[in-house]
Protein backbone atom coordinates (compact mmCIF):
# COMPACT_ATOMS: atom_id res chain seq x y z
CA UNK A 1 0.00 0.00 0.00
CA UNK A 2 2.85 2.36 0.83
CA UNK A 3 4.43 1.91 -2.57
CA UNK A 4 1.05 2.29 -4.20
CA UNK A 5 0.75 5.77 -2.74
CA UNK A 6 4.15 6.86 -3.95
CA UNK A 7 3.48 6.15 -7.59
CA UNK A 8 1.43 8.28 -9.89
CA UNK A 9 -2.02 6.69 -10.31
CA UNK A 10 -1.93 6.67 -14.11
CA UNK A 11 1.37 4.79 -14.25
CA UNK A 12 0.01 2.25 -11.89
CA UNK A 13 -3.12 1.82 -13.90
CA UNK A 14 -1.23 1.09 -17.08
CA UNK A 15 0.96 -1.24 -15.11
CA UNK A 16 -2.06 -3.12 -13.79
CA UNK A 17 -4.24 -2.71 -16.84
CA UNK A 18 -7.31 -1.85 -14.79
CA UNK A 19 -8.76 1.06 -12.83
CA UNK A 20 -10.56 -1.29 -10.45
CA UNK A 21 -10.41 -5.03 -9.97
CA UNK A 22 -13.27 -6.76 -8.17
CA UNK A 23 -12.05 -10.28 -7.54
CA UNK A 24 -14.51 -13.01 -6.43
CA UNK A 25 -16.21 -10.64 -4.03
CA UNK A 26 -19.05 -11.78 -1.79
CA UNK A 27 -20.84 -9.83 0.88
CA UNK A 28 -23.36 -10.89 3.47
CA UNK A 29 -25.10 -8.96 6.19
CA UNK A 30 -26.63 -10.00 9.48
CA UNK A 31 -25.50 -12.04 12.43
CA UNK A 32 -23.79 -15.38 12.26
CA UNK A 33 -26.27 -18.16 11.54
CA UNK A 34 -28.92 -15.99 9.91
CA UNK A 35 -26.75 -14.28 7.36
CA UNK A 36 -28.16 -12.90 4.17
CA UNK A 37 -25.99 -13.16 1.08
CA UNK A 38 -26.21 -9.88 -0.81
CA UNK A 39 -23.38 -10.23 -3.33
CA UNK A 40 -22.26 -13.62 -4.59
CA UNK A 41 -18.87 -14.12 -6.20
CA UNK A 42 -18.65 -10.94 -8.26
CA UNK A 43 -15.62 -10.54 -10.50
CA UNK A 44 -15.33 -7.44 -12.62
CA UNK A 45 -12.51 -5.33 -14.03
CA UNK A 46 -12.91 -1.72 -15.02
CA UNK A 47 -10.31 -0.82 -17.63
CA UNK A 48 -8.47 2.53 -17.42
CA UNK A 49 -10.68 5.19 -18.96
CA UNK A 50 -13.61 2.82 -19.32
CA UNK A 51 -17.24 3.72 -18.61
CA UNK A 52 -19.13 0.76 -17.08
CA UNK A 53 -22.71 0.80 -15.83
CA UNK A 54 -23.98 -1.66 -13.26
CA UNK A 55 -27.62 -2.37 -13.87
CA UNK A 56 -30.08 -4.25 -11.74
CA UNK A 57 -33.45 -4.34 -10.01
CA UNK A 58 -33.76 -3.52 -6.33
CA UNK A 59 -32.07 -6.03 -4.07
CA UNK A 60 -29.23 -6.77 -6.46
CA UNK A 61 -26.73 -5.15 -4.11
CA UNK A 62 -25.40 -2.65 -6.65
CA UNK A 63 -25.06 0.12 -4.08
CA UNK A 64 -23.43 -2.34 -1.68
CA UNK A 65 -20.89 -3.21 -4.33
CA UNK A 66 -20.14 0.46 -4.91
CA UNK A 67 -19.66 1.00 -1.17
CA UNK A 68 -17.19 -1.88 -1.15
CA UNK A 69 -15.21 -0.41 -4.03
CA UNK A 70 -15.27 2.99 -2.31
CA UNK A 71 -13.82 1.39 0.82
CA UNK A 72 -16.81 2.35 2.98
CA UNK A 73 -17.35 -1.32 3.79
CA UNK A 74 -15.35 -4.56 3.61
CA UNK A 75 -16.20 -7.60 1.48
CA UNK A 76 -17.00 -10.83 3.34
CA UNK A 77 -14.90 -12.75 0.83
CA UNK A 78 -12.71 -11.90 -2.13
CA UNK A 79 -10.73 -8.74 -2.68
CA UNK A 80 -11.02 -5.35 -4.31
CA UNK A 81 -8.07 -3.48 -5.70
CA UNK A 82 -8.17 0.12 -6.80
CA UNK A 83 -4.71 1.18 -8.05
CA UNK A 84 -3.82 4.63 -6.72
CA UNK A 85 -5.87 4.24 -3.56
CA UNK A 86 -9.13 5.97 -2.89
CA UNK A 87 -11.98 6.12 -5.40
CA UNK A 88 -14.25 9.14 -5.70
CA UNK A 89 -17.93 8.51 -4.99
CA UNK A 90 -21.00 10.48 -5.98
CA UNK A 91 -24.32 9.75 -4.26
CA UNK A 92 -27.92 10.00 -5.36
CA UNK A 93 -28.26 12.90 -2.95
CA UNK A 94 -25.76 15.66 -3.59
CA UNK A 95 -24.27 15.20 -0.08
CA UNK A 96 -22.73 18.66 -0.25
CA UNK A 97 -22.08 20.26 3.13
CA UNK A 98 -24.67 23.02 3.64
CA UNK A 99 -22.43 25.02 5.95
CA UNK A 100 -19.97 25.60 3.12
CA UNK A 101 -20.39 27.41 -0.16
CA UNK A 102 -20.26 25.46 -3.42
CA UNK A 103 -16.62 26.46 -3.94
CA UNK A 104 -15.61 25.70 -0.36
CA UNK A 105 -17.12 22.22 -0.65
CA UNK A 106 -14.77 21.56 -3.53
CA UNK A 107 -11.87 23.18 -1.70
CA UNK A 108 -12.41 20.88 1.29
CA UNK A 109 -11.94 17.86 -0.97
CA UNK A 110 -8.81 19.51 -2.40
CA UNK A 111 -7.51 20.14 1.12
CA UNK A 112 -8.10 16.52 2.11
CA UNK A 113 -6.24 15.49 -1.04
CA UNK A 114 -3.32 17.53 0.25
CA UNK A 115 -3.32 20.37 -2.26
CA UNK A 116 -1.49 23.42 -0.82
CA UNK A 117 -3.72 26.21 0.43
CA UNK A 118 -2.64 28.73 -2.20
CA UNK A 119 -3.67 26.51 -5.12
CA UNK A 120 -7.09 25.46 -3.88
CA UNK A 121 -9.09 28.48 -4.93
CA UNK A 122 -7.87 28.42 -8.53
CA UNK A 123 -8.32 24.66 -8.79
CA UNK A 124 -11.87 24.91 -7.43
CA UNK A 125 -12.65 27.60 -10.02
CA UNK A 126 -11.24 25.36 -12.75
CA UNK A 127 -13.42 22.44 -11.64
CA UNK A 128 -16.50 24.64 -11.44
CA UNK A 129 -15.77 25.79 -14.96
CA UNK A 130 -15.46 22.15 -16.04
CA UNK A 131 -19.03 21.52 -14.87
CA UNK A 132 -20.05 24.89 -16.35
CA UNK A 133 -20.74 26.59 -13.07
CA UNK A 134 -18.22 29.40 -13.32
CA UNK A 135 -19.21 32.14 -10.89
CA UNK A 136 -20.96 29.76 -8.50
CA UNK A 137 -18.03 29.60 -6.06
CA UNK A 138 -19.69 31.76 -3.43
CA UNK A 139 -23.17 30.29 -3.82
CA UNK A 140 -24.75 28.49 -0.90
CA UNK A 141 -25.87 24.93 -1.56
CA UNK A 142 -29.54 25.72 -0.95
CA UNK A 143 -29.39 28.51 -3.52
CA UNK A 144 -28.59 26.02 -6.27
CA UNK A 145 -31.07 23.94 -8.25
CA UNK A 146 -31.02 20.13 -8.09
CA UNK A 147 -29.05 19.84 -11.32
CA UNK A 148 -26.53 22.47 -10.23
CA UNK A 149 -26.02 20.71 -6.90
CA UNK A 150 -25.24 17.43 -8.66
CA UNK A 151 -22.77 19.26 -10.90
CA UNK A 152 -21.04 20.73 -7.84
CA UNK A 153 -21.04 17.22 -6.34
CA UNK A 154 -19.44 15.96 -9.55
CA UNK A 155 -16.84 18.72 -9.34
CA UNK A 156 -16.14 17.75 -5.73
CA UNK A 157 -15.74 14.12 -6.75
CA UNK A 158 -13.36 15.14 -9.52
CA UNK A 159 -11.47 17.28 -7.00
CA UNK A 160 -10.27 14.08 -5.36
CA UNK A 161 -8.25 13.52 -8.52
CA UNK A 162 -8.98 9.83 -8.36
CA UNK A 163 -8.71 7.78 -11.53
CA UNK A 164 -11.91 5.97 -10.62
CA UNK A 165 -15.23 7.73 -10.27
CA UNK A 166 -18.04 5.74 -8.65
CA UNK A 167 -21.56 7.03 -9.20
CA UNK A 168 -24.52 5.69 -7.22
CA UNK A 169 -27.66 6.64 -9.20
CA UNK A 170 -26.52 10.26 -9.19
CA UNK A 171 -29.29 11.53 -11.48
CA UNK A 172 -32.21 9.46 -10.20
CA UNK A 173 -33.77 12.32 -8.28
CA UNK A 174 -33.62 14.83 -11.14
CA UNK A 175 -36.32 15.74 -13.62
CA UNK A 176 -36.04 14.23 -17.09
CA UNK A 177 -34.83 17.38 -18.87
CA UNK A 178 -32.11 18.07 -16.34
CA UNK A 179 -31.07 14.43 -16.28
CA UNK A 180 -30.75 14.45 -20.04
CA UNK A 181 -28.49 17.51 -19.92
CA UNK A 182 -26.37 15.98 -17.17
CA UNK A 183 -25.93 12.82 -19.25
CA UNK A 184 -24.41 14.97 -21.96
CA UNK A 185 -22.23 16.79 -19.43
CA UNK A 186 -21.00 13.60 -17.87
CA UNK A 187 -20.16 12.10 -21.26
CA UNK A 188 -18.30 15.28 -22.22
CA UNK A 189 -16.33 15.39 -18.94
CA UNK A 190 -15.55 11.67 -19.10
CA UNK A 191 -14.14 12.15 -22.60
CA UNK A 192 -12.17 15.27 -21.63
CA UNK A 193 -10.57 13.62 -18.60
CA UNK A 194 -9.02 10.17 -18.40
CA UNK A 195 -11.23 9.10 -15.53
CA UNK A 196 -12.82 5.63 -15.38
CA UNK A 197 -16.45 5.50 -14.34
CA UNK A 198 -18.42 2.78 -12.57
CA UNK A 199 -22.01 3.97 -12.69
CA UNK A 200 -24.88 2.28 -10.85
CA UNK A 201 -28.45 2.67 -12.07
CA UNK A 202 -31.74 0.84 -12.37
CA UNK A 203 -32.60 2.81 -15.50
CA UNK A 204 -31.82 0.66 -18.57
CA UNK A 205 -31.85 3.51 -21.07
CA UNK A 206 -29.58 5.59 -18.88
CA UNK A 207 -27.18 2.66 -18.68
CA UNK A 208 -27.12 2.23 -22.45
CA UNK A 209 -26.99 5.99 -23.10
CA UNK A 210 -23.82 6.39 -21.03
CA UNK A 211 -21.77 3.24 -20.99
CA UNK A 212 -19.24 1.39 -23.08
CA UNK A 213 -20.19 -1.72 -21.18
CA UNK A 214 -23.41 -2.59 -19.36
CA UNK A 215 -23.23 -5.21 -16.61
CA UNK A 216 -26.51 -6.74 -15.51
CA UNK A 217 -26.75 -8.00 -11.93
CA UNK A 218 -29.34 -10.53 -10.81
CA UNK A 219 -31.10 -9.99 -7.51
CA UNK A 220 -30.88 -11.75 -4.16
CA UNK A 221 -28.07 -12.56 -4.18
CA UNK A 222 -26.46 -10.19 -6.62
CA UNK A 223 -24.55 -12.07 -9.31
CA UNK A 224 -23.33 -10.95 -12.67
CA UNK A 225 -26.02 -12.20 -15.03
CA UNK A 226 -24.81 -10.88 -18.36
CA UNK A 227 -22.92 -8.04 -19.91
CA UNK A 228 -23.14 -6.10 -23.15
CA UNK A 229 -20.62 -4.01 -25.05
CA UNK A 230 -22.25 -0.83 -26.29
CA UNK A 231 -20.69 0.14 -29.59
CA UNK A 232 -23.06 2.97 -30.43
CA UNK A 233 -20.76 5.96 -31.08
CA UNK A 234 -20.81 8.89 -28.66
CA UNK A 235 -22.31 11.44 -28.40
CA UNK A 236 -25.52 9.48 -28.11
CA UNK A 237 -28.94 10.60 -27.10
CA UNK A 238 -31.33 8.70 -24.95
CA UNK A 239 -33.89 8.84 -27.79
CA UNK A 240 -31.53 7.29 -30.36
CA UNK A 241 -32.97 4.28 -32.13
CA UNK A 242 -29.87 2.20 -31.43
CA UNK A 243 -30.04 3.05 -27.73
CA UNK A 244 -33.71 2.10 -27.66
CA UNK A 245 -33.08 -1.16 -29.48
CA UNK A 246 -30.40 -2.36 -27.08
CA UNK A 247 -32.46 -1.13 -24.14
CA UNK A 248 -35.35 -3.35 -25.20
CA UNK A 249 -33.05 -6.34 -25.32
CA UNK A 250 -31.55 -5.64 -21.92
CA UNK A 251 -34.95 -4.88 -20.39
CA UNK A 252 -36.21 -8.28 -21.54
CA UNK A 253 -33.27 -9.93 -19.82
CA UNK A 254 -33.81 -7.83 -16.67
CA UNK A 255 -37.51 -8.74 -16.59
CA UNK A 256 -36.59 -12.38 -16.90
CA UNK A 257 -34.31 -12.02 -13.88
CA UNK A 258 -37.07 -10.36 -11.90
CA UNK A 259 -39.68 -12.93 -12.96
CA UNK A 260 -37.56 -15.76 -11.57
CA UNK A 261 -38.12 -14.33 -8.09
CA UNK A 262 -41.89 -14.63 -8.38
CA UNK A 263 -41.72 -18.32 -9.11
CA UNK A 264 -40.84 -19.59 -5.67
Amino acid at each position, binding site marked *: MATALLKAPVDEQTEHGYAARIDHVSKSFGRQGEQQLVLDDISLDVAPGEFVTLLGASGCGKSTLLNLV*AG*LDRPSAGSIHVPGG*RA*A*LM*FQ*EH*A*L*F*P*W*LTAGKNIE*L*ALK*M*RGLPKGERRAEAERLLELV*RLQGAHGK*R*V*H*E*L*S*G*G*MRQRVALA*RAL*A*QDSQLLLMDEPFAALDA*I*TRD*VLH*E*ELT*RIWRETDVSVLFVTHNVREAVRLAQRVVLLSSRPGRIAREWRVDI*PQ*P*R*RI*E*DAAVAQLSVEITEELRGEIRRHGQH
Partner: protein
Amino acid sequence: MANTETTGSARERHRTGRDTADSGAPGPVNGPGGPGGNGGSDGNGQAASDLAGLEAGLDALDSKSAARTSLGRVLLTKVLPPVVAIALVLLLWQLAFALELKEDYQLPSPLQVGSAIGDLWLKGTLLEVIWTSVSRGLLGFGIAIVIGTPLGLLVGKVWFVRAAIGPILTGLQSLPSVAWVPAAIIWFGLSDAMIYTVILLGAVPSIANGLVSGLDQVPPLYRRAGRVIGATGLAGVRHVLLPASLPGYLAGLKQGWAFAWRSLMAAEIIARSPDLGAGLGQLLENGRGNQDMAMVLSAILLILIVGIAIDLLVFAPLERRVLRSRGLLVSR
Protein backbone atom coordinates in the same frame (compact mmCIF):
# COMPACT_ATOMS: atom_id res chain seq x y z
CA MET B 1 -46.47 20.70 -28.68
CA ALA B 2 -46.11 19.86 -32.37
CA ASN B 3 -43.42 22.49 -32.59
CA THR B 4 -41.32 20.77 -29.96
CA GLU B 5 -41.55 17.48 -31.74
CA THR B 6 -40.32 18.93 -35.00
CA THR B 7 -37.31 20.40 -33.24
CA GLY B 8 -36.67 17.06 -31.60
CA SER B 9 -36.60 15.07 -34.80
CA ALA B 10 -34.53 17.71 -36.58
CA ARG B 11 -32.00 17.48 -33.81
CA GLU B 12 -31.97 13.74 -34.05
CA ARG B 13 -31.18 13.76 -37.74
CA HIS B 14 -28.51 16.32 -37.07
CA ARG B 15 -26.96 14.04 -34.46
CA THR B 16 -27.18 10.90 -36.50
CA GLY B 17 -25.39 12.71 -39.30
CA ARG B 18 -22.53 13.63 -37.03
CA ASP B 19 -22.29 10.26 -35.37
CA THR B 20 -21.69 8.47 -38.61
CA ALA B 21 -19.46 11.35 -39.76
CA ASP B 22 -21.41 11.32 -42.96
CA SER B 23 -22.62 14.69 -44.20
CA GLY B 24 -24.59 13.33 -47.14
CA ALA B 25 -27.97 14.97 -47.03
CA PRO B 26 -28.11 18.69 -46.27
CA GLY B 27 -29.64 18.70 -42.81
CA PRO B 28 -32.43 21.00 -41.71
CA VAL B 29 -31.54 24.31 -40.16
CA ASN B 30 -30.99 23.70 -36.50
CA GLY B 31 -31.26 26.90 -34.52
CA PRO B 32 -29.53 30.13 -35.46
CA GLY B 33 -26.14 28.50 -35.78
CA GLY B 34 -26.45 27.46 -39.42
CA PRO B 35 -27.17 24.29 -41.35
CA GLY B 36 -26.76 21.01 -39.58
CA GLY B 37 -24.94 17.99 -40.93
CA ASN B 38 -21.73 19.92 -41.49
CA GLY B 39 -19.91 17.20 -39.66
CA GLY B 40 -16.55 17.54 -37.96
CA SER B 41 -15.59 20.06 -35.32
CA ASP B 42 -18.08 22.66 -36.43
CA GLY B 43 -20.99 20.47 -35.45
CA ASN B 44 -19.34 19.51 -32.18
CA GLY B 45 -18.71 23.12 -31.29
CA GLN B 46 -22.29 23.98 -31.96
CA ALA B 47 -23.55 21.05 -29.93
CA ALA B 48 -21.35 22.19 -27.06
CA SER B 49 -22.66 25.73 -27.15
CA ASP B 50 -26.21 24.35 -27.53
CA LEU B 51 -25.68 22.36 -24.36
CA ALA B 52 -24.13 25.27 -22.51
CA GLY B 53 -27.07 27.47 -23.50
CA LEU B 54 -29.59 24.83 -22.48
CA GLU B 55 -27.86 24.40 -19.17
CA ALA B 56 -27.71 28.14 -18.52
CA GLY B 57 -31.44 28.28 -19.23
CA LEU B 58 -32.20 25.43 -16.82
CA ASP B 59 -30.05 27.03 -14.14
CA ALA B 60 -31.76 30.36 -14.56
CA LEU B 61 -35.23 28.79 -14.43
CA ASP B 62 -34.42 26.80 -11.33
CA SER B 63 -32.56 29.38 -9.31
CA LYS B 64 -34.38 31.11 -6.54
CA SER B 65 -33.79 34.77 -5.96
CA ALA B 66 -33.48 35.62 -2.31
CA ALA B 67 -35.23 38.92 -1.77
CA ARG B 68 -34.51 40.70 1.49
CA THR B 69 -37.50 42.04 3.36
CA SER B 70 -37.88 45.79 3.60
CA LEU B 71 -37.52 47.76 6.82
CA GLY B 72 -41.21 48.69 6.79
CA ARG B 73 -42.18 45.04 6.61
CA VAL B 74 -39.80 44.11 9.40
CA LEU B 75 -41.35 46.82 11.59
CA LEU B 76 -44.83 45.59 10.74
CA THR B 77 -44.22 41.86 11.26
CA LYS B 78 -41.55 41.77 13.95
CA VAL B 79 -41.91 44.96 16.02
CA LEU B 80 -45.59 45.80 15.97
CA PRO B 81 -46.98 42.55 17.50
CA PRO B 82 -44.85 42.59 20.68
CA VAL B 83 -45.48 46.32 21.13
CA VAL B 84 -49.22 45.69 20.94
CA ALA B 85 -48.90 42.81 23.44
CA ILE B 86 -46.90 44.93 25.90
CA ALA B 87 -49.37 47.81 25.61
CA LEU B 88 -52.22 45.40 26.32
CA VAL B 89 -50.51 44.03 29.43
CA LEU B 90 -49.83 47.54 30.73
CA LEU B 91 -53.44 48.47 30.07
CA LEU B 92 -54.79 45.47 32.00
CA TRP B 93 -52.34 46.17 34.82
CA GLN B 94 -53.41 49.81 35.02
CA LEU B 95 -57.05 48.67 34.98
CA ALA B 96 -56.43 46.24 37.84
CA PHE B 97 -54.76 49.06 39.77
CA ALA B 98 -57.60 51.49 39.08
CA LEU B 99 -60.20 48.93 40.18
CA GLU B 100 -58.18 48.42 43.38
CA LEU B 101 -58.25 44.63 43.11
CA LYS B 102 -55.45 44.57 45.68
CA GLU B 103 -54.18 47.03 48.25
CA ASP B 104 -51.80 49.68 46.90
CA TYR B 105 -48.80 48.23 48.70
CA GLN B 106 -49.50 44.88 47.10
CA LEU B 107 -50.18 46.11 43.59
CA PRO B 108 -48.52 49.38 42.57
CA SER B 109 -49.40 51.00 39.26
CA PRO B 110 -47.13 50.72 36.19
CA LEU B 111 -46.19 54.34 36.74
CA GLN B 112 -45.07 53.71 40.33
CA VAL B 113 -42.90 50.82 39.19
CA GLY B 114 -41.49 53.01 36.42
CA SER B 115 -40.59 55.72 38.91
CA ALA B 116 -38.97 53.12 41.20
CA ILE B 117 -36.69 52.19 38.31
CA GLY B 118 -36.19 55.90 37.64
CA ASP B 119 -35.12 56.41 41.27
CA LEU B 120 -32.52 53.65 40.92
CA TRP B 121 -31.22 55.35 37.82
CA LEU B 122 -31.01 58.70 39.60
CA LYS B 123 -29.20 57.13 42.55
CA GLY B 124 -26.72 55.80 40.00
CA THR B 125 -27.11 52.20 41.14
CA LEU B 126 -29.29 50.86 38.32
CA LEU B 127 -26.54 50.11 35.81
CA GLU B 128 -24.24 48.93 38.57
CA VAL B 129 -26.78 46.39 39.79
CA ILE B 130 -27.50 45.17 36.28
CA TRP B 131 -23.83 44.96 35.39
CA THR B 132 -23.01 43.02 38.57
CA SER B 133 -25.51 40.35 37.57
CA VAL B 134 -24.79 40.37 33.84
CA SER B 135 -21.02 40.13 34.30
CA ARG B 136 -21.47 37.23 36.72
CA GLY B 137 -23.86 35.56 34.30
CA LEU B 138 -21.61 35.99 31.27
CA LEU B 139 -18.45 34.88 33.06
CA GLY B 140 -20.23 31.83 34.47
CA PHE B 141 -21.71 31.06 31.07
CA GLY B 142 -18.29 31.38 29.46
CA ILE B 143 -16.79 28.88 31.89
CA ALA B 144 -19.79 26.61 31.30
CA ILE B 145 -19.06 26.66 27.54
CA VAL B 146 -15.41 25.78 28.15
CA ILE B 147 -16.43 22.81 30.32
CA GLY B 148 -19.64 21.76 28.55
CA THR B 149 -18.28 21.62 24.99
CA PRO B 150 -15.54 19.00 25.45
CA LEU B 151 -17.86 17.13 27.80
CA GLY B 152 -20.56 17.00 25.13
CA LEU B 153 -18.05 15.91 22.50
CA LEU B 154 -16.87 13.14 24.78
CA VAL B 155 -20.39 11.93 25.58
CA GLY B 156 -21.39 12.17 21.94
CA LYS B 157 -18.40 10.33 20.52
CA VAL B 158 -17.30 7.79 23.14
CA TRP B 159 -19.89 5.13 23.82
CA PHE B 160 -18.51 4.24 27.23
CA VAL B 161 -18.69 7.82 28.47
CA ARG B 162 -22.21 8.11 27.08
CA ALA B 163 -23.35 4.94 28.81
CA ALA B 164 -21.68 6.07 32.04
CA ILE B 165 -22.77 9.70 32.39
CA GLY B 166 -25.26 10.37 29.58
CA PRO B 167 -28.37 9.66 31.67
CA ILE B 168 -26.98 11.61 34.63
CA LEU B 169 -26.35 14.60 32.37
CA THR B 170 -29.91 14.48 31.09
CA GLY B 171 -31.22 14.05 34.63
CA LEU B 172 -29.25 17.05 35.88
CA GLN B 173 -31.12 19.21 33.39
CA SER B 174 -34.38 18.57 35.17
CA LEU B 175 -32.93 19.27 38.62
CA PRO B 176 -33.77 22.89 39.55
CA SER B 177 -30.43 24.58 40.10
CA VAL B 178 -31.77 26.36 43.20
CA ALA B 179 -31.44 22.95 44.85
CA TRP B 180 -27.66 23.35 44.63
CA VAL B 181 -27.61 26.66 46.50
CA PRO B 182 -27.63 25.25 50.06
CA ALA B 183 -24.94 22.73 49.12
CA ALA B 184 -22.81 25.39 47.44
CA ILE B 185 -23.12 27.69 50.47
CA ILE B 186 -21.91 24.90 52.74
CA TRP B 187 -18.99 24.18 50.40
CA PHE B 188 -17.89 27.71 49.57
CA GLY B 189 -19.65 30.04 52.02
CA LEU B 190 -21.18 33.27 50.74
CA SER B 191 -18.63 33.87 48.04
CA ASP B 192 -18.36 34.29 44.28
CA ALA B 193 -17.23 30.68 44.07
CA MET B 194 -20.58 29.61 45.43
CA ILE B 195 -22.43 31.68 42.81
CA TYR B 196 -20.35 30.32 39.93
CA THR B 197 -20.79 26.77 41.16
CA VAL B 198 -24.54 27.15 40.97
CA ILE B 199 -24.34 28.70 37.49
CA LEU B 200 -22.11 25.92 36.20
CA LEU B 201 -24.31 23.16 37.59
CA GLY B 202 -27.23 24.83 35.84
CA ALA B 203 -25.65 25.56 32.46
CA VAL B 204 -23.08 22.83 31.76
CA PRO B 205 -25.60 19.96 31.33
CA SER B 206 -27.65 21.99 28.85
CA ILE B 207 -24.64 22.90 26.75
CA ALA B 208 -23.26 19.37 26.75
CA ASN B 209 -26.65 17.85 25.97
CA GLY B 210 -27.20 20.32 23.14
CA LEU B 211 -23.94 19.28 21.53
CA VAL B 212 -24.75 15.59 22.04
CA SER B 213 -28.12 15.90 20.31
CA GLY B 214 -26.49 17.99 17.59
CA LEU B 215 -23.95 15.20 17.01
CA ASP B 216 -26.69 12.56 17.06
CA GLN B 217 -28.60 14.39 14.38
CA VAL B 218 -25.74 14.64 11.88
CA PRO B 219 -27.11 12.89 8.78
CA PRO B 220 -25.18 9.64 8.08
CA LEU B 221 -24.80 10.85 4.49
CA TYR B 222 -22.51 13.68 5.64
CA ARG B 223 -20.34 11.21 7.53
CA ARG B 224 -20.09 9.00 4.45
CA ALA B 225 -19.39 11.94 2.17
CA GLY B 226 -16.71 13.06 4.60
CA ARG B 227 -15.11 9.62 4.61
CA VAL B 228 -15.15 9.46 0.81
CA ILE B 229 -13.23 12.72 0.44
CA GLY B 230 -10.81 11.58 3.13
CA ALA B 231 -12.05 13.60 6.10
CA THR B 232 -11.60 10.89 8.73
CA GLY B 233 -10.45 10.96 12.35
CA LEU B 234 -9.75 14.44 13.69
CA ALA B 235 -10.23 16.04 10.28
CA GLY B 236 -13.66 14.41 10.15
CA VAL B 237 -14.57 15.87 13.55
CA ARG B 238 -13.31 19.32 12.63
CA HIS B 239 -14.60 19.59 9.07
CA VAL B 240 -17.75 17.46 9.16
CA LEU B 241 -19.06 16.53 12.61
CA LEU B 242 -18.66 19.84 14.42
CA PRO B 243 -20.05 22.10 11.70
CA ALA B 244 -22.86 19.64 11.02
CA SER B 245 -23.89 19.64 14.69
CA LEU B 246 -23.73 23.42 15.04
CA PRO B 247 -27.53 24.01 15.04
CA GLY B 248 -28.04 21.59 17.95
CA TYR B 249 -25.05 23.06 19.76
CA LEU B 250 -26.45 26.58 19.38
CA ALA B 251 -29.80 25.44 20.76
CA GLY B 252 -27.89 23.99 23.72
CA LEU B 253 -26.01 27.26 24.24
CA LYS B 254 -29.26 29.19 24.19
CA GLN B 255 -30.80 26.94 26.79
CA GLY B 256 -27.54 26.99 28.72
CA TRP B 257 -27.71 30.77 28.96
CA ALA B 258 -31.32 30.65 30.18
CA PHE B 259 -30.31 28.13 32.85
CA ALA B 260 -27.22 30.13 33.82
CA TRP B 261 -29.29 33.28 34.26
CA ARG B 262 -31.97 31.49 36.29
CA SER B 263 -29.39 29.81 38.52
CA LEU B 264 -27.66 33.11 39.08
CA MET B 265 -30.89 34.76 40.20
CA ALA B 266 -31.65 31.88 42.58
CA ALA B 267 -28.18 32.18 44.04
CA GLU B 268 -28.38 35.96 44.38
CA ILE B 269 -31.77 35.88 46.11
CA ILE B 270 -30.58 33.42 48.73
CA ALA B 271 -27.01 34.57 49.20
CA ARG B 272 -26.74 38.11 50.47
CA SER B 273 -23.62 39.33 52.13
CA PRO B 274 -21.73 42.59 52.28
CA ASP B 275 -18.82 40.79 50.62
CA LEU B 276 -20.89 40.05 47.54
CA GLY B 277 -21.71 42.88 45.16
CA ALA B 278 -25.43 43.56 44.90
CA GLY B 279 -27.03 42.17 41.76
CA LEU B 280 -30.61 41.99 40.53
CA GLY B 281 -31.44 39.04 42.78
CA GLN B 282 -30.32 40.96 45.85
CA LEU B 283 -32.35 43.94 44.66
CA LEU B 284 -35.40 41.70 44.50
CA GLU B 285 -34.82 40.26 47.94
CA ASN B 286 -34.21 43.74 49.41
CA GLY B 287 -37.54 44.82 47.97
CA ARG B 288 -39.25 41.93 49.73
CA GLY B 289 -37.45 42.73 52.99
CA ASN B 290 -38.62 46.35 52.83
CA GLN B 291 -42.17 45.37 51.80
CA ASP B 292 -41.55 47.52 48.71
CA MET B 293 -43.67 45.98 45.98
CA ALA B 294 -42.66 48.58 43.41
CA MET B 295 -39.03 47.60 43.98
CA VAL B 296 -39.87 43.88 43.74
CA LEU B 297 -41.71 44.34 40.45
CA SER B 298 -38.90 46.55 39.11
CA ALA B 299 -36.38 43.83 39.89
CA ILE B 300 -38.54 41.15 38.23
CA LEU B 301 -38.96 43.35 35.16
CA LEU B 302 -35.24 44.02 34.92
CA ILE B 303 -34.38 40.32 35.26
CA LEU B 304 -36.84 39.55 32.48
CA ILE B 305 -35.57 42.37 30.25
CA VAL B 306 -31.93 41.32 30.59
CA GLY B 307 -32.83 37.72 29.76
CA ILE B 308 -34.76 38.77 26.67
CA ALA B 309 -32.11 41.28 25.61
CA ILE B 310 -29.28 38.72 25.67
CA ASP B 311 -31.41 36.32 23.66
CA LEU B 312 -32.37 38.97 21.10
CA LEU B 313 -28.93 40.55 20.80
CA VAL B 314 -26.73 37.45 20.93
CA PHE B 315 -28.49 34.18 20.27
CA ALA B 316 -31.25 35.14 17.86
CA PRO B 317 -28.87 36.74 15.28
CA LEU B 318 -26.38 33.89 15.65
CA GLU B 319 -29.03 31.26 15.17
CA ARG B 320 -30.59 33.11 12.24
CA ARG B 321 -27.23 33.41 10.56
CA VAL B 322 -26.44 29.71 10.88
CA LEU B 323 -29.88 28.60 9.75
CA ARG B 324 -30.05 31.06 6.86
CA SER B 325 -26.64 30.09 5.51
CA ARG B 326 -27.81 26.46 5.45
CA GLY B 327 -31.16 27.26 3.88
CA LEU B 328 -32.98 26.00 6.97
CA LEU B 329 -34.75 29.26 7.74
CA VAL B 330 -38.36 29.20 6.61
CA SER B 331 -39.17 32.74 5.62
CA ARG B 332 -42.77 33.71 5.31
